[in-house]
Every structure is written in C-alpha cells, then in structure tokens.
C-alpha cells in the first residue's frame, strides 16, 4: 500500500511538470505554431523562477511565503514568455522554419539557463533554496492528514492543483469562447481567419507567448517542488520537455485529455521504480531505461491510431507548422 501511494505521488509530481508544459504547448499549437522549444522554455522558466526565489530568500532575513511564490512564478513566466517571444518573432514576423527555430530554442534555453546557472552555483555543483522549496511543497492543511485519501489527493503543493485548473480553463477557453474559436480558426486555416477580419499575427504572437509562459510554469514546478528546490549542473528537465510535446499528440490537442494523460505518463515513467517491488521482483538495471520509454511508445501508438481512424478532429490543427503569408490567399 505504501509503495502504491508513493508511486501515485511520484506520478502526480511528474505529471504536473508535463501538464504545465503540454497545456502551454496546446495553446501555442492551436495557433498553428509548432514550438519544439518546449524543453528550452522549461529550462528558462525553471532557472529564472529558481534564481528569483533563491536571491530573494538569501537577500532577506525574514522571507515571506507569498512573495516567494509571486517572485518565483513571475520570474519563471516572464523568462519563458521571452523565449516564446523570440520564437514568435523568428517564425511569425521573419517566417523562419518552425521546426528549426524550435529546436534552436531548446538548445538556446538550456544554454542560457546553464550559463547564468554558473553565477548562482558559484563554483559548486548544486545549490538549494530550502525555504522556497518548503513553501512550494506545503501540502493542503487538514485534508492531507486524512490517511490514504489525504496522501493520494491532498499531499501536494499548490502548483499541482493550479496545473489542473489551468488545463480546465484552457479547455473552456478553446471550446467555449469567441476568442478560442478564433484561435482554432487561425491554427486550422489562417487565410480563412484573415478573410473574416481576425488578426492572425496578433493571435499567433499572443498564443505563443502565453503558451510559453504556462509551459515555463512547468519548469518552475520542476525546480521548486519536484526537484526539491535544487539547482544543479545536471538535471533531467529536457527529457520532461520532450514528453510534454509528446503528450500534446497523445491528448489529440484537447486540454482535458492532458490532465489524465499527464498522470498516465507519470505512472509509466516511474513504473520501473515501483512495479517490481509491488510484484516482489528486482528489475535489472538495463531494463530501467527501457521501461521509461513506455510513454513515447504509447504516443506512437496513439499517432498510428488517430491517423488510421482519420477523424478530422484528432489530427491536430491543419495549418500546424506552416508560416502564414497573406499574399498567398
């Protein structure tokens, strides 16, 4: 039982990181921008959030919890949105190839984060913002004490619940509001959107930058809670970033599917650590990496399934990955 709960906890923590990443990426992709810079944006968000909290925590004798949260989240979102802005400028205004730009952004984001990370590390291999981590990891009071139920549902930091709320709000926005309808039209057929007076460029910029900001929150959560408030020279944020991109496809571009999909991915990813002990067996080392591959395999299966089914709604935005030239109409 304890192992099972620990597995669920681990899956939820892990899932929350990619839930932020995928929700942001869905908003971006709905505008027709395939931003493969998700890992880089998470890097930017994670580092900026950590640095903000770390310097605040160490710069004041009595750090306030509210300010830690505010500073970490604002810094993270701002840095991530900046990454989105770079991507937007290159692909929308300069019409650079989206795939190439996205991959470059991934390398750029990791590079920038590690470059400034040296300043924070100050010669060491890792630093910890303990107070900030405690703030981010504080479970829900009272409810988290309710035995197994409390452990499974209420033992997490506030960002776990924030991720679910943002995914739900995004879903409502995309399917139930005028602006959401316009956004979908921009991603499906920018020429059509343009012909009815929707400002395609503005929608693409807004969706990419807001999407990046939400993706960046995944980085903030990764460092502040999932990673125990530690910034180090080695971290696995990039791998989670790619999983977030895969999850968008797995969820067939629908934010509600992200919520359960993220937890499923988390469960599969940590399967190697918990399932063997649940079954009372030991997993040889070389199988660990293989089992961590399961989310990717599942995503490929989903891709095959949706393309075989040929359901238009599951195919993703029709104009995804294409730059829009007005003269081409």
């Amino acid at each position, binding site marked *: 039982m304890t192992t099972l709960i620990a597995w669920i906890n681990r899956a939820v923590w892990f899932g929350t990181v990619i839930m932020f990443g995928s929700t942001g990426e869905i908003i971006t992709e709905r505008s027709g921008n395939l931003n493969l810079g998700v890992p880089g944006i998470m890097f930017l968000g994670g580092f900026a959030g950590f640095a903000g909290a770390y310097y605040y925590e160490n710069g004041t004798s009595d750090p306030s919890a509210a300010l830690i949260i505010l500073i970490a989240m604002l810094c993270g979102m701002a840095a991530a949105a900046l990454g989105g802005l770079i991507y937007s400028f290159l692909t929308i205004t300069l019409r650079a190839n989206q795939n190439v730009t996205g991959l470059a952004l991934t390398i750029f984001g990791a590079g920038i984060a590690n470059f400034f990370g040296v300043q924070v590390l100050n010669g060491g291999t890792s630093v910890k913002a303990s107070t900030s981590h405690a703030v981010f990891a504080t479970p829900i009071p009272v409810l988290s004490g309710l035995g197994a139920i409390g452990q499974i549902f209420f033992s997490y930091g506030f960002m776990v619940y924030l991720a679910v709320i943002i995914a739900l709000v995004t879903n409502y926005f995309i399917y139930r509001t005028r602006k959401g309808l316009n956004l979908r039209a921009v991603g*499906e057929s920018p020429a*059509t959107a343009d012909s*009815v007076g929707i400002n395609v460029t503005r929608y693409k910029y807004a969706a990419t930058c807001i999407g990046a900001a939400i993706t960046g929150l995944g980085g903030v959560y990764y460092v502040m809670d999932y990673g125990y408030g530690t910034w180090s020279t080695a971290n696995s944020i990039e791998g989670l970033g790619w999983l977030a991109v895969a999850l968008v496809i797995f969820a067939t571009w629908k934010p509600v599917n992200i919520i359960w999909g993220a937890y499923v991915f988390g469960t599969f990813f940590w399967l190697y650590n918990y399932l063997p002990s649940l079954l009372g067996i030991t997993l040889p080392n070389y199988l660990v990496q293989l089992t961590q591959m399961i989310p990717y395999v599942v995503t490929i299966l989903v891709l095959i399934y949706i393309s075989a089914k040929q359901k238009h709604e599951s195919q993703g935005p029709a104009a995804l990955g294409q730059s829009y030239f007005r003269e081409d109409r």
Partner: protein
Amino acid sequence: MSDHPKIPAVSMRGITKRFGSVTANNHCSLDIQNGEILALLGENGSGKTTLMNMLAGLYYPDEGQIFLDGREVSINSPHDAFSLGIGMVHQHFKLVDVLTATENIILGIGEKGKLDLKAAAAKIRSICETYGFDLNPDQKIYDMSVSQKQTVEIVKVLYRGARILILDEPTAVLTPQETDRLFTIIHNMKDDGKAIVIITHKLNEVKRISDRVAILRKGECVGVYPTSEISIQEMTDRMVGHKVVLNIERPVPKTPPEQKIFIRNLTVVDEDGLTRLDHVSFYMNTSEILGVAGISGSGQKELLESIAGLQRVQSGSIEYKDDSGNLLELVGRDPLEIARLGITLSFVPEDRLGMGLVGDMDITDNIMLRSFRDGRSVFTNRRTPKKLAGKIVNDLDVKTPSLATPVRKLSGGNVQKVLVGREIASAPRVLLTAYAVRGLDINSAYQIYDLLNQQKERGVAVLYVGEDLDVLMALCDKIMVLAGGKLAGIVDPRVTTKEAIGLMMTGGAGKEEQKNG
C-alpha cells in the same frame, strides 16, 4: 426602373489598380443598384475579380473613389467591407474544415458576451428560411459537398448583414440542378432589395439571371447594358473585342479511325464501397474525339483514372493496341508504364488546383515533371523544357510575368493552359482530358478545342470529358453518356439532340442522389 434617378447602392468612379507593371483595372466606373442583379462579364484576367476585391477590402484602389448610397467610403480591410454591408463569396471557399457551419458563419464577428452557438444556429435557420437555403447549421464542413460549402459562404455574408453581395463565379462548381437552386435563392435575395453582383463568363447565365450586364475587357469597363437589350453575340463581341466564330470545327480526319483501346465490363468500387463504375464497355478510336457527357460525379474521374492506371479496378479489362497490333492489358499496370505507352491524362479538378501541377514550381519545372525521367545523366536538362515552356506560353497566350513565376501565382485559366499544353506537347497516342476548359474564357477555350482537333488529326485517340453539352455536340465525333456510373449509351452528335442526351444523363440521376443522401 423608376422615373427619377435612384442613388445607387454602390458607385465606383474611375477605379485604377496596378500590380507592378500590370494594370488590372484602368479607370473603371460602375454603379450597382439596390434590388438588381448585375452580371460582371469578362475574359480571364480582364480584372473582374480584382475590381470586386476592392469592394471586399482585399485590395485598395490606387486611384478612384467608391461611394455607398452616395457617401464616399474607404474600404481598407475585409472587416471594413463587412461593417459597410458588403459581402463577397470567393471562388475558393474560405472555410475551416473541422468547424461546423455555425462556427464558420460567426467566425471573427466581434460581438460581446458569451459565445452562444444555439442562438447563432437559430438565426442561421431563420436566414435559411427567408431565402430558401437548405443548410444544417451543425454539420461539419468536411462532411459537405461543394454546393453545401457555397451555401455556408453565402449565409456567412448574409449573417453579417450584407446588403451588397458579390458572387465570384458561383456556378463554376455546381451541377445544373444546384445552379437552378442557387438562381432561385439569388432571385429571393434580389426581391429582398439586396444588390447582387455575379462575376461570370457563362453567357447563357448572364442572360438567364441578370438585370444588367457590365462588360470588362483588359481591365477597362467597356459598357453596361440592360440584359434584355443585348444579344449573346453582342456580349461576346464586346468582351473579346473582336468577332469570335461561335462554331467549333469538327474536321474529318485524313486517316480512317482504327480501334485503339478496348474497355470491357469495367467496374470500380470506391473506399466506401460505393460502385463508381458499373460494367462499362466501349472502345476508343484513333483520329476521333470521344466525348463523355454526364452529371458531375457519374464516374468520369474514375473512368479516366482507371485508364491511366491511377485507380484500383474491381473487375473488367482495359486493352490497348500498340503500333504493331499487339493487345496489352492495362489493368494492373504501373501508371508510369502506361504513360510510356503514350497515354496521357490531364484532369482539371473542381478547384482547378492540385492535380498534375506543383504550385510552388515554375512553368519550366512543371513541364520537366513529364520529361525528367528521359534524361540519361545525373543532371537534369532544363534547356529543352524551357524552350517548350516558352512555346506553350506563346501559343496558348498564357499570361505570366515570366517563365520563372510559380504556377500558383497564375490565374486559374492560365494554370489550366499550362496543364493541357504540357500533356499535348508530350505527343501522346491517347489523350484523356477532363474539364479542360473549366473556368476558361471563350478565347482560351477555343484555343483548347483547336489543340484537341490538331491531336485528332495527328491520329490521337482523344477522350474529352466536358460539361457544356453544346460544346460536346459541336466538337466530338461520338458522345458517350454516363449516368450514375453506368453507360447510358453512345450517340452520334450529328444526328441526336441536346434534349436526348440530357434525358440519358438524368436516367441515373435519381440513383446518384440516393447514394449521396
């Protein structure tokens, strides 16, 4: 017409629009009245669509003024046009496939408040009732036929409160029945006091529906006439500037026809299990143009693609007699091999793009698509295709800035000329063409007919799938009528009547509708 002069709904004065060195419209002046249907007639590239695009806000005139109800206006964007009550239905529909009719119709409307799809659908239903549209607001666009999509486009502009409607070649993609239905609706809108402009080059439609006709030639307004006071011959003359002989030649071939392709019991079943061709048997002769008549979707496309090897054939045989008299079975053969035998296919699809030409490549490169395999070296030879491209551009009068212009930047008619010109230039033994003159103006169409006749005299077996019965009757040596995938009969156009063919075509029409429904 009332006695005192009415203030026109739209008044365009001295409109000039240039694209680089090309003048698309030169000091055009035009009035459009409320409650009238104005036909805008002109050849391809005469500037009809450009002129109307300036009303729709897609282009901004370089010179001239536009007045609405006597007030000067400036239309800078489609949004401006909508708010002034101008709506244009373009030739290529602007619709989002995965959205429903309702979502497409309300798209981009800057209304405040919650998105209420039910209220919007109710408003759409009431518009449909008023004018007689048949539309399901909850249907997705990808489930719709071309005619249904057009309905969505028209309702879209009406929903936005348009009182001036511009329809760009609305009948180009419609069946005769759908055209009738559209014309009824256009009349209803006219009775409702709307000003309607129809861009077209089908003279009989101008006669049938319009109150007045404005004729454009090479970007200039030649004149506006009450439709009842101008004959088809006069319209043609003013449109092309010189007299066009309306008779199509049907030369007697110098060499007697010989049987070239034998088709026996050809049956094609599509992915959805519908029988597209049902035991069709006929043969094609050399030195002969075999016309194919039929309502669109009666199996024409499947027939052509079967012969060209692009279609999976359920049963039946297609035999080709080569020069030494050997019979070759074409079913199951590779399309490339069939093309090598000298069988070429030029199919102009409903949307005129996408089949046979690569939009982003220029004319020379598109011509190379046919010939690059013949090259022996690793490198392609561009010199010969370039010469050929120049010849096609010259002979067929393709309007293009240069040979290096991507074909997607050419107008629809010019794209078609390149397509047909290329197929003919490969000196085929069997030439399959479908809708070769679709959307072409009279002059270009006659050039195509001449080309087909030249091929016939060369001894080529020509299969011509056409839409216009008058043309089929005048051009072809034999006419094969398809109805719902079945062969309704093969007739001699010299002795039969249009009405008789029309009757054969509709023989299977009821069945076709059942399939779709």
